[in-house]
């Protein structure tokens, strides 16, 4: 992990700790949504950005994690904090299964298989409405009861998001990360150099899915609700959007993208009205067409100029 990333993580924690006392309390909700998307997309970034597997079924895993945790809480009274772990585990296990299955396929076959999986999960959730509550969703308990539930949930989200960020940053700079990149960039070359590509594919996929499961469980207990819409096509669109405009395969991408799609969208709520998704879809089209590196690339292009200006300003 690089020094800058440590600083960013520290800033996120500090800012997050201060925020509830200086911001209107509605912001805890919004930042919690931000945390959910950040964790979820950090997962997808590991799968697609690091490992190069275009999983189109990523949103099935928060659904798996969320329902697992909510159902366990309901039936065996599992505390939500352990539910986070259970959700991550359940999604991770499913990730291993699907990861092994998709070793057989490449390119957009992989995309279609994962998509099929997500839709089947969705169909099962809706069909087994006696267990899952159908389209209306399933209620999940808060982390703690009482008026502080909101704040506790917020801090848990903040902690998980920072943890996910730190883990993904460590992975990025580690030897394991190199193996993942090798699988992504040239799988045949990686194979010939002795990288166990099959293992690393499943590893990357599983790691991403487990984080998605944690995100789902966090969501369920924070909003006290998990419903099939978190596994829908629109959500997958949001995941793509966040990572693409943030910067695919970069450490900061998911955080920047989530910031953009959740927080900036909230700030511009009055201005954008009901058009925010339309505007974001347009941005995504333009980003894919013209700046394929996303927001991170823009920063890279613009920042030397800014830096020079800044240096000139302070007289250096």
């Amino acid at each position, binding site marked *: 992990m690089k020094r800058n990333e440590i600083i960013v993580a520290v800033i996120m924690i500090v800012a997050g700790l201060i925020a509830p006392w200086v911001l209107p309390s509605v912001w805890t909700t919004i930042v919690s949504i931000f945390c959910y998307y950040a964790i979820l997309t950090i997962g997808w970034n590991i799968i697609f950005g690091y490992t190069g597997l275009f999983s189109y079924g990523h949103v099935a895993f928060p659904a798996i994690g969320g329902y697992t945790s909510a159902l366990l809480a309901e039936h065996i009274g599992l505390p939500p904090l352990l539910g986070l772990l259970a959700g991550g585990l359940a999604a991770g296990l499913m990730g291993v299964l699907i990861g092994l299955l998709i070793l057989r396929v490449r390119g957009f076959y992989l995309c279609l298989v994962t998509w099929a999986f997500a839709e089947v999960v969705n169909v099962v959730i809706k069909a087994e*409405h006696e267990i899952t509550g159908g*389209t209306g969703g399933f209620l999940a308990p808060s982390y703690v009861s009482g008026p502080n539930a909101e704040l506790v949930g917020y801090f848990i989200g903040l902690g998980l998001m920072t943890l996910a960020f730190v883990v993904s940053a460590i992975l990025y700079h580690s030897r394991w990360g190199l193996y993942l990149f090798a699988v992504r960039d040239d799988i045949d070359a990686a194979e010939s150099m002795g990288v166990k590509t099959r293992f690393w594919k499943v590893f990357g996929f599983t790691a991403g899915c487990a984080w998605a499961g944690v995100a789902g469980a966090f969501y369920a207990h924070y*909003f006290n*609700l998990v419903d099939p819409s*978190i596994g829908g096509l629109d959500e997958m669109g949001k995941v793509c959007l966040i990572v693409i405009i943030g910067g695919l395969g970069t450490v900061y991408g998911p955080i920047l993208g989530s910031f953009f799609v959740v927080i900036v969208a909230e700030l511009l709520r009055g201005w954008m009205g009901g058009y925010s998704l339309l505007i974001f879809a347009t941005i995504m089209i333009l980003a894919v067409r013209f700046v394929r590196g996303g927001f991170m690339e823009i920063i890279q292009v613009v920042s030397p100029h800014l830096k020079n200006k800044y240096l000139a300003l302070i007289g250096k």
Partner: protein
Amino acid sequence: MKKSALFTVLFFVLSVLFLPGGAMAADTIKLGLVTPMSTGDFRSGKINVQTVELAVEELNAKGGILGKKVEVVTADDEGKPAAGVIAIKRMIASEKVSAVVGLWHSSVAVAQAKVAIQSQVPIMLHYSWTDDLTAGHSDYVYRVGPFNAEIAQLALPYMKKNFKNIAIMYETNAFGTGFAKYLEKIAKAAGLTVYSIGYPQEATDLKPQLLQLKAKSPKPELLVIAAVYEATNLIPKQSYEIGLSPEMQILCSWDWPTYPAFQEILGDKGVGVTYATFESDKLKLSPLGEKFKKAYKAKYKMDPPVFALFLYDEVMILAETMERIKSSDPKDVAAGLKDTKFQGTTGLITFERKEEPGPIWNQWTGHQLFINKLTAVEGKEYKREEIYP
């Protein structure tokens, strides 16, 4: 490059931190209105907004509540549970409202109620039918409107009189499932044959389910549809297309056949469809009800639907309660609502509580149900006839 990214993140974090804080407590009483406004059943949502605005105008004309001006804060729940939860959280946490009204779709309301209970802010439900809402016996949930078990009870005599075999198709959410389960139970107890089939609310091809009904023996004579979303119009249409109707009569569990989309989609095949409603010329309005109806018609150029009456009652009950207990604190209001005795638009409203587990808890139960039939097409509208009671 790393450094620049760092700066950017820092910039964003700081920009959030220095956002202007929310408006500090003012000398107004805030009333929250959370209802579908963009998607879901937003047409009803619009009526909800109009009704509350009208009621609050009236209150302010009379000098407000406790001498303070009343302010309505509205939020869109998009007819979706997740968005609904966020909307009500926003309402309670940042707007500090005294109470929330206008909740609409049952499955959304169930999730929203949880938030309200946790935050100890009272909510009042005027047309969310699921039993679960009041079955939790919370001190913060009040309902003036009807509920599934009550509606099933009220409709059962009609079914028993005319049919032997009935089928129920329901959305697999809190509203549909709750209604179907209860109706199935009491209809079976009353000696009817019941087939029930659930389907996800966004389904548009319901022929497989209808074909299953077609193959049943004895054939269902009546199909009860418990749905809110698209399928409300699609089931009757597809039932005709596969030749199941008109032999099998259709009873919609609420009055969506009066909506324009129903006519556009069914055309003259809609003739013969029946629906349950709380709307009727026979419905007796109190003087307050007549007054509201006149004011609504004058302002919005249409008759208020029946749920607008309930919602209007709720706003007035809240005002009356706050005046009575001399407080607008959500906790006090919730406690004060218990003792409501309010001469509402359709009758005297009191909140009943029945100790054994069940939906009657802070619940008004004085509703009347009517069943109408579409008898002919007249231009862009159907002619309707009341067939029950």
